[in-house]
């Protein structure tokens, strides 16, 4: 029996009021488990990114709950939500959002610096994670000296460095060529996913669907269907 990492209960999110009210997410219910690689897929405007923001404690839903350890995270204070994101969630943004003037190691160390870790310790840990993603020899390079795939790996190392339980990838293959994208997903599945982590990937790249343990299809803010490749 797999343990639930994060769950959504009747999540609604709308923008505008009265006749201008538009639902971005409507009555979304789902569970993501530890050891699971869950894809959220769907066309542009289907609510994937909004749902991702709600799950990660960034955008408050208008209705419903996001449960972690059976607690609704949206009952927490802003500081507690920031703490939650810093300690229990790792983000890999679509555009990576690396800091161009910092080295790869310094970029990876950012979450640890935000946790008030000693600078030298943070850099040492960052280098360990760069080693895990295969960039040991490039820790002193700035992002502009790295290829798209390498920048993606730096972003992954940054997401992993604080050992979060939930990793969230936003369109990880969108900026990469097909082969590099495939290698990144293989790397994520084989090297990062463990029984203590849950990885949620938002994508509309159907070339990588085969790597998923579960696929949540969204359209018009609703879950159209959920596919799971294993029994819970």
């Amino acid at each position: 029996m797999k343990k639930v990492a994060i769950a959504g209960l009747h999540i609604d999110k709308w923008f505008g009021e009265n006749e201008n009210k538009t639902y971005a997410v409507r009555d979304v219910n789902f569970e993501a488990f530890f050891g699971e690689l869950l894809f959220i897929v769907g066309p542009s405007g289907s609510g994937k990114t909004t749902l991702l923001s709600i799950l990660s404690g960034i955008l408050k839903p208008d209705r419903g709950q996001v449960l972690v350890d059976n607690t609704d995270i949206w009952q927490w204070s802003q500081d507690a939500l920031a703490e939650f994101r810093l300690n229990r969630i790792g983000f890999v943004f679509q555009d990576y959002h690396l800091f161009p003037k910092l080295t790869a190691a310094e970029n990876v160390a950012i979450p640890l610096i935000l946790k008030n870790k000693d600078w030298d310790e943070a850099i040492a840990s960052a280098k360990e994670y760069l080693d895990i993603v295969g960039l040991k020899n490039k820790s002193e390079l700035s992002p502009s000296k790295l290829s798209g795939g390498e920048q993606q790996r730096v972003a992954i190392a940054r997401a992993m460095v604080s050992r979060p339980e939930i990793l969230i990838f936003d369109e990880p293959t969108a900026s990469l060529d097909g082969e590099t994208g495939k290698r990144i997903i293989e790397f994520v599945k084989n090297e990062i996913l463990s029984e203590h982590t849950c990885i949620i990937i938002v994508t509309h790249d159907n070339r990588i669907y085969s790597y998923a343990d579960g696929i949540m299809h969204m359209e018009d803010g609703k879950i159209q269907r959920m596919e799971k490749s294993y029994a819970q």
Partner: protein
Amino acid sequence: MNDRGKFFGLLMGVTFSVFLMTMMMSMFSGIISRASATIDNVGAKVWVLDPAVNNLQGGIPLPDYVLDYAKSLNGVAHAEPIYFGSALAKLHNGTYQAISVIGLDDSTLFGRPALIEGKIEDLFAENGFIVVKDAEFEKLGNPKIGSEFELNDFRVKIVGIADAKQSGLFGIPTLYTTYKRAITYIPTTRFRLSYVLIEPKADSEIPMIKAQIKKLGYEALTREEFIAKVSAFYKFKTGLGINIFLMTVISFIVGLSIAGQTFYTFIVENMEKFGALKAIGAKKRQLVLMVTTQATLTCILGYGLGVGLASSSIFIARANMPDYAARVIFFNLGLSFLLVLIIAAFSSFIGIRKVLKIQPFEIFRG
């Protein structure tokens, strides 16, 4: 700041602003200090004057009975007359030079300056004058002991060269002579006594002396009070104070605008980076600290550069132009620092407002 160009732009803006503010305040401070230089140089503890007097050169002559009255007061050790006047000196080369003449009491020479050359008793010699070696000294052709020139067709003979704590405001040389000679050489009004200088028996007697003088319709001020009165006159009753104040305010606004605008642009251009930090888990106070630290460090660095530049400029100017009145004092440095902190606070504030409004949700949209 992640952007070298903007950092230098901001730094230059703050440096320029601090440079201007420090220069303005230093000039003002120098001018105010010189305006009361003679009060300091004469060194009397208490000055008696007409209440309408608001600057040293604008003295209203006192009747002689004020001197007699002051001498008769119990707490007074001694009281002496002093004369301030101005005249034109005709130099050896035929040119005329405006001069300031101070006449000291003939018997005590109270208020006399410290001499660098010559003997004070030579002042009693015929036509004896002492010249002050200040920034204006060379305007008399760098006189030596024995040098002579004319004053209202009277001969002036230099018998001593005096030191001065600081030069006067109006850029004219100062000569000391005896009271009687001064009022003889320079045309005067009915009353000739410019001020009465009092040496009290003890400082505790000063309030009583002030009260007694007030009864006579005149004013007795300590040296510090007289300096403050002269300063207040230049600050508030001439255009000097308001003009320099306005220039300082303009310099401050220039700094504020450059720093605020540059910092705001920097924040706007790095919105997605701050958004990413927020999404990763940076707390509000960490972002506030980040922005404040950047603004404050840049402003403090700009302050150091601006003060250094202003001090160097003043040092060079004073070395080459003895009349240059600016002086850097701790109060001015403190005030500049306070204004720079306000610039830093303002820049931080507009930056923080923007950063705190960033929705990390936006960065998921790419």
